[in-house]
């Protein structure tokens, strides 16, 4: 068992993969993953993944950017380096709106992408699924479903029989 990371079934179309993923999830497997060469609608829901936290991270990043932007300008203009220009107030906030906005967008955008990579556990150049020879087509034209050995319901011969019932093109063992 220790040399087996999981079992991977290969499918020819997005429809087949979504159906297979639903069936696998329904029959009690939880540690499963589906792979596709483009985002397939309904696929992440089929494996039981509904909500991601990228939006929340982006919101927090944007708010941090907003307070950084305004705080920086307020501190520079009123405390660190106050200059009286034409008698205008030192905290001339309407003039600070633009830089505040730009830093909101900058921090928000960077945290959306950074958060996405972090939650996806990327960069990660090596992963057991790459050891399956067919898997190079996961980024091209094939669709894969993997049941990981860590799943409590996983039992190599029984899981293989189950996957065969889903009529895949091939089934491969994912080595450790």
């Amino acid at each position: 068992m220790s040399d087996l990371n999981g079992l991977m079934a290969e499918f020819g179309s997005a429809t087949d993969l979504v159906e297979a993923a639903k069936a696998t999830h329904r029959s009690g497997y939880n540690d499963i993953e589906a792979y596709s060469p483009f985002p397939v609608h309904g696929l992440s829901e089929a494996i039981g993944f509904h909500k991601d936290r990228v939006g929340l991270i982006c919101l927090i990043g944007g708010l941090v950017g907003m307070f950084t932007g305004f705080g920086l300008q307020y501190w520079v203009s009123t405390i660190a380096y106050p200059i009286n220009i034409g008698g205008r107030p030192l905290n001339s906030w309407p003039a600070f709106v633009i830089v505040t906005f730009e830093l909101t967008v900058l921090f928000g955008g960077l945290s959306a992408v950074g958060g996405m990579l972090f939650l996806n556990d990327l960069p990660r150049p090596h992963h057991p699924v790459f050891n399956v020879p067919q898997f190079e087509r996961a980024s091209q034209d094939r669709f894969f479903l993997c049941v990981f050995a860590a799943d409590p319901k996983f039992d190599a011969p029984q899981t293989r029989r189950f996957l065969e019932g889903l009529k895949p093109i091939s089934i491969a063992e994912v080595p450790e």
Partner: protein
Amino acid sequence: MSTQDIVLDREGLAEVPVIEPGHTLASVTEKISDIVLVRPLSIGWVAGFLACASLVGVLGVAVGYLFYKGTGIWGINIPVGWGFAIVNFVWWIGIGHAGTLISAILHLLRQSWRNSINRFAEAMTLFAVMCAGVFPLIHVGRPWLAYWLFPIPNTMGVWPQFRSPLLWDVFAVSTYATISAVFWYTGLIPDLATLRDRATTPIPRFIYGALALGWRGEARHWHRYESAYLLLAGLSTPLVLSVHTVVSFDFAISIMPGWHTTVFPPYFVAGAIYSGFAMVLILAIPVRAVYNLKDMITERHLENAAKVMLATGLIVAYGYILEIYMAWYSGPKSIDWFTVHNRFFGPYAGPYWALWICNIIIPQVLWIKSVRRSPFLLFLISLVVLAGMWLERFVIVILSLHRDFVPSSWGMYYPTKWDWATYFGTIGLFLMLIFLFVRVLPMISIFEIRMLLPEAEAKHK
């Protein structure tokens, strides 16, 4: 949302599809990635690349001599202190805007036809912003002090002036450059994984593999990826509108006649998109012919781009007419009237009327459908529009400055050979980067093209 459905327009002609029928997941993957991985170097590519690289050499000489002698080698003087550097900066940054419009705004509007042109439009944005960025750095005169533009703690205890539009510009342009680069790279990650998996030799496999960050195409990954991409599109949309607005503030917030007008922000943004789409067409038309991509960049894309040009061109025309109207409304003794009169009949009347011909009059032929579907004519019109938009910036910068408030300080501006060398040098830099881009990265987004295929929809039983 099958793209294979044939839609008839009012004249009963079949609409050109976004992607020609007959493609499969494997065929689009192979076709786009083979341009990078398999296609041998052609004489034409090498010749074009070397020609552009030699222009970059010209840029290097021009900038080197500028650093040695100072800005006196340019045609700038008093009263015309802002010359080609600002004209070219505004022109280049405007060209970049179409890329963000295509990738972000059309994504939010669910215009799926954009999927075949967004990648190289974003590359165009990035390279145009790089060319634009050259000018503010070299025109400050003392480029080794360029870090003064940023709020960096220093021993002098001096901080930038946050009430100045010029500083807003620093933040707007550097945010725009950063977010454009991140947006572009995020879009590339799945395609870099495709290149990694298709590469047959170890060095490309290693490089693309490292850049792909280990992308595996997991359903969870795609879910978060689409969230992040949508958020980036949502953030980039107000950002791109803000950038040229802030650039226009550099002018509009001053009290200079010809600059001090409230119509500048919308009219700058429209002009930016106008020139950007012209550049998209100038790049797309030869690229789709040379690399045989007419089945993915179809006449539909060209026609849509032409329609956007027509619409934004009319907004620009509205801006020009409003400037004249405001002068008339201010009365014949106003400085605004003098400014417009000087544009019509002054020493720079030639560039001013050339601007009307290039930007407003000639592009009206885009109302004709057969013109919008003719790649050759579109290419010519796009060149005319780019020249027109450059003239617009010339008219705004030079014509407003050369007549100062006191007639004794009136002057003329004549660009020198160093001005021209710097300008053509940045065009060389831009095209050289485009040449490199089409050979080392997939110029069409492969995974987004896959989504346009009918088999991409999972049918729910």
